[in-house]
């Protein structure tokens, strides 16, 4: 019988629940993570994403529900019998063992031959560019080096699934960017299923093939590709949590021909309904999310846009590649706009207290239930 690696490395959570004491941390979670994917689990601090990871690793026992690795039920297997390895947030390197022995640990406890251990460890240390630190102890390594040792230690045994618990949180920005690329390349090479837990949307968007967004209650709000999540959030929580956005509220009208949203103080906005959803009906409450970069700003009126608003610039934040304008609308609603800094000397300069026109196309708006 040949092993079909395509399905063997998938993770399936079925009705998984976990409570600690009285508090329910994870409630009836269903999640399918396809084999060989880079999957990111994104959520605010304390949403239970780490608990979910610890359940998959086997450090916590679920109150109810099942965990499948491929077709095998691993719900009740102890951690050392699961082909799942984890990279801890604080790395948890063994302080009394040097780099070589830390990485060799899983082979040593499996009582592999000395020569095989040496060969495999040296190979992986080379691949991670840490071979020159082989006899150093964890305390003598920099954060980035410790990170590599922890990664090497976790994948040397070729697990089916690698869990990463905010592994880059302790690194500085430049190093983090570099490690992100390395992680993507590593996953590409290994074809191991990576489950990456983070509260950093930038990391999740960069890394993931698919990602799941968890909310404060430990429920999964949305699963999709980074692009789907960013461009088409299904709830205002997702829209606000991933990236920045502007939310306008109103009521829905004229569903079938030229639909629009009526706001109490700002008038009507044309909207686009490519697929009619179940929650939509004439006069229902709704919100719309417009990403700041999808709004254009100008001091002069412009044609050809479906929607126009007027506002006053209350502050300007220069970000380098873009400039952020914070605007105040007539009804004191705040709105954010990002503008690419395309030219050194733009034709019109926008300043504080300038009255400006804001434009966007109705196709670039996401409609949200409430």
């Amino acid at each position, binding site marked *: 019988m040949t092993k079909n690696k395509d399905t063997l490395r998938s993770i399936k959570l079925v009705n998984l629940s976990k409570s600690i004491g009285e508090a329910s941390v994870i409630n009836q979670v269903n999640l399918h993570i396809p084999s060989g994917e880079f999957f990111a689990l994104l959520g605010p601090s304390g949403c239970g994403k780490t608990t979910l990871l610890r359940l998959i*690793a086997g450090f916590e026992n679920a109150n109810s529900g099942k965990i499948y690795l491929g077709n095998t039920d691993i719900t009740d297997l*102890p*951690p*050392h019998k699961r082909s799942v*390895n984890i990279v801890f947030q*604080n790395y*948890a390197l063994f302080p009394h063992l040097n780099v070589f022995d830390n990485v*060799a*640990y*899983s082979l040593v406890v499996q009582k592999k031959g000395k020569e095989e251990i040496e060969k495999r460890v040296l190979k992986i240390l080379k691949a991670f560019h840490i071979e020159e630190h082989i006899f150093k102890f964890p305390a003598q390594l920099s954060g980035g080096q410790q990170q590599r040792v922890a990664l090497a230690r976790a994948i040397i045994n070729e697990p089916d699934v690698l869990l990463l618990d905010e592994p880059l949180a302790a690194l500085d920005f430049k190093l983090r960017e570099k490690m992100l690329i390395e992680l993507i390349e590593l996953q590409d090479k290994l074809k191991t299923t990576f489950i990456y837990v983070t509260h950093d949307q930038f990391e999740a968007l960069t890394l993931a093939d698919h990602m799941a967004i968890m909310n404060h209650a430990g429920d999964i709000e949305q699963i999709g590709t980074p692009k789907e999540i960013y461009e088409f959030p299904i709830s205002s929580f997702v829209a606000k949590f991933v990236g920045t956005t502007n939310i306008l509220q109103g009521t829905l009208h004229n569903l079938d021909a030229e639909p629009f949203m009526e706001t109490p103080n700002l008038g009507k906005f044309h909207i686009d309904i490519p697929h009619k959803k179940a929650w939509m009906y004439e006069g229902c409450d709704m919100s719309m999310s417009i990403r700041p970069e999808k709004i254009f700003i100008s001091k002069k009126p412009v044609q050809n846009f479906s929607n126009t608003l007027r506002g006053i610039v209350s502050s300007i934040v220069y970000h380098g590649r873009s400039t952020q304008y914070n605007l105040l609308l007539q009804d004191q609603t705040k709105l954010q706009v990002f503008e690419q800094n395309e030219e050194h000397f733009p034709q019109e300069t926008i300043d504080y207290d300038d009255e400006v026109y804001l434009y966007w196309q109705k196709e670039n708006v996401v409609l949200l239930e409430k």
Partner: protein
Amino acid sequence: MEETVITSLPRRKRFSLGSLFTKKDIPFAIGCPALVWHSLFFYLPLLIMILSSVFDLSESGSFQGFTLKHFLAVQNVAHFRIIFKSIGIAFLTAILCFVIAFPCAYFLAFKGGRYKTLLLFFLIVPFWTNFLLHVCAWFFVLERNGFLNNLLLSLNLIGEPIHFLNSFFAIILMMVYHYLLFMILPIYSSLEKFNLFLFEASSDLGATKLQTFKRILLPLTLPAIRLGFLLVYIPAFGEFVIPELMGGDKAYYAGNVVSQYVLGNYTAPLGAAFTLMGACILMVSIGLLLWIFKRISKSLGGLSV
């Protein structure tokens, strides 16, 4: 013309305590009281003891020169046997203390939860009471009509009372009871700081509980265990009250020999010589013990060491 630049105003030198010391002297200054204390109450008596072991004194107490005769006098088979017996009982005490202390410290540190401090308190409380009270308490437990015998009799485990007191068993029991805390506390404080993620990491990497104990927990607590061993082993070697109270007439250990010589008439120099001889052998045995710990630590380390 060159300009003179005034970078700082001249200051008048005033006397201050700080001017006596530079920064480098501070550790020395802090250590000074301890050094004085130690010199007065430890090195001075030690010197007196060493001198008294090599001074040849007449019966009237006048100095007649140096001699090694006291050392020659204490070097006999019986004395060596007693010293090695003491080393044996001290080692046995340390081993038993470790066997009891490790699980105890483990429980306190990892399973104690919010009762941790309370449990620790209960461990320490007996040490607030007088040592003789402990011995008395154990008398009540161990004597012919005591608690233990009555319990065993009532359970029909034994036909007639066992003679617990004045035995090797009683000495060991009292020794372990007396020195246990010195083993528990270092191990506890080491386990208390233990990074629990290391257990999870070990288990995640495929290690069983036993392997985790051997390869992670034990090597990381070994320094504390070694400290506990020294804290128990060294005083246990010189212990003379416990053998005397619990062991009866036959129990005769290094401490008892010393106390007898020192308290006897004109035999103090012999006691000094015997003590020094015993101390030398003890030091060699400690060296051996530390070497054993080093070997254990090496064997528990990784492949590359």
